[in-house]
C-alpha cells in the first residue's frame, strides 16, 4: 500500500485504535464503579428484583434520560452512563477507522466503514427496536 504523507501506517493505526479502546474501557469502568459505589451505599440493603422481566424505566432506556439522571447524581443513571461510554468505545474505533481510510483515500473502505458506523449510530440512537 502506498504510504502517501499524512496517512498512517497500519501499525500506527493499530496503536491509536488500542489507545481508543483502552481509554474508553478505563473511563467507562471508572464511571460504572462510581455509580456502583453510590448505588450500593444508597440501596445496598434493598432487595434485588431481576426474577421477572419488566424492562427498565423509560429514563434508563434513552441517551437523554440517562444523561439527565447522571447529572442529577442518581446512582443507576451514573452506572448506565458508564455503560453508554462502554458501548460508545467500539463505535469510536469505527469512527477513527473512517477517518484513517479517508486519509488513505481508500474509497471502498470509506464506504464500508460508513455503513457500519451508520448502523451502530442508528442502533444507539434507538432507531431499531
Amino acid at each position, binding site marked *: 500500500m502506498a504510504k502517501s504523507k499524512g496517512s498512517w501506517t497500519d501499525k500506527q493505526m493499530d496503536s491509536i485504535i488500542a489507545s481508543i479502546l483502552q481509554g474508553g474501557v478505563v473511563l467507562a469502568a471508572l464511571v460504572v464503579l462510581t455509580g*456502583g459505589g453510590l448505588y450500593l451505599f444508597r440501596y445496598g440493603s434493598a432487595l*434485588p428484583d431481576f426474577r421477572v*422481566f419488566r424492562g427498565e424505566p423509560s429514563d*434508563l432506556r434513552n441517551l437523554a434520560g440517562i444523561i439527565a439522571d447522571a447529572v442529577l447524581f442518581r446512582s443507576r443513571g451514573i452506572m448506565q452512563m458508564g455503560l453508554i461510554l462502554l458501548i460508545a468505545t467500539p463505535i469510536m*474505533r469505527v469512527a477513527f477507522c473512517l477517518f484513517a481510510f479517508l486519509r488513505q483515500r481508500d474509497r471502498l473502505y470509506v464506504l464500508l466503514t460508513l455503513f457500519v458506523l451508520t448502523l451502530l449510530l442508528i442502533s444507539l440512537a434507538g432507531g431499531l427496536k
Partner: protein
Amino acid sequence: MAPSGVWDAMNNFEFTTLIGLGSVAAGFLGALTGLGGGVVIVPMLVLLFGVDIRYAAGASLVSVIATSSGAAAAYVKEGYSNVRIGMFLEVATTTGALSGAFLAARLSSSIISIVFGLVLLHSAYLSFRARHSQSEAGSPDPLAVFLKMDASYPTPSGPEQYHVRAVPLGFGLMVVAGAISGILGIGSGAFKVLALDRAMHIPFKVATTTSNFMIGVTAAASAGVYLHRGYIDPGLAMPVMIGVLLGSLLGVRSLVRSNTVLLRLIFTAVIVFLATEMIYNGFTGGL
C-alpha cells in the same frame, strides 16, 4: 428449576458481591480457554441466580464489549490483527447482530434458552477441534485482492504472507455469527474464529485477534437495541462488567503459567452441564 427461597433473602449488596465474584471466575476461565466469559455469564445468571434471560443477555452483552476492548492492547503489540478484514466482515456481523437483536424480542424465553444451550454445546465441541492454522501458499483470490485483505504477520522467522480465501462464505458465516450474538447476548467469538480460520484460511493468530476486534463492534450494534428495549439493567450489568473485565485480565496474565489442557477440560465440562440445563429448562419452561 429456577432456584428460589435462598435468593429471596438476599439484599442488593450480597447479590452484587456474589454476581461479581462469579463473573470474575467466568472471565478468568473464558480468557484462559479462549471461549470468552460471555458464554457462561448468561447460564450462571439464569440458572444460579434466577435472573430473567433478557436481563442476563443485556448484562452479558455489555461485559463482552468490555473484555473485547480491554484485551485489544495486548494484541496490538503483537501486530497480528488485520483492520481491513475486520472492517469488511463487520458489515456482515453488525447486519446479523441487528437482525438477531430484532428477533430476540419476538422469540419466547424458552426458545432462546434452547438455542443458547445448542450454541454452548457447539462451542464446547469447537474448543476440542484441532486448529487449522496452515496458511498455504498459492495463487491469491481475486476478491480478497480487490478488498486488499492479503497481508503478512510476524513469525519467529520474519513476516509471513497470507492469502485470504472464500470471502463470500466467510461473509455469510459472519452474518450468522452476528445473529447469534444479537439473539443471545454473547460475543460468539468461537464461531467467528472458526469462520476466519477454517473457511477463509486466515492464520490462527490473525484470526483470533481480528475476531476479538470484531466482537466489540458486533456487540455494540445489538447493545443499542437492547438498551432501548430495557434489557440493560445497570444494577445487574455493573458487577458483571467489572467482574468479567477483572477476571479476563487476570486470565490473560496467567495464560503462560497455567495448565490450560486441564482447565479447558474443566471449563468444557461446565459448559456441557450448563448447556444441558439451559435446554432442559427451555423445554420444561422452568425459567
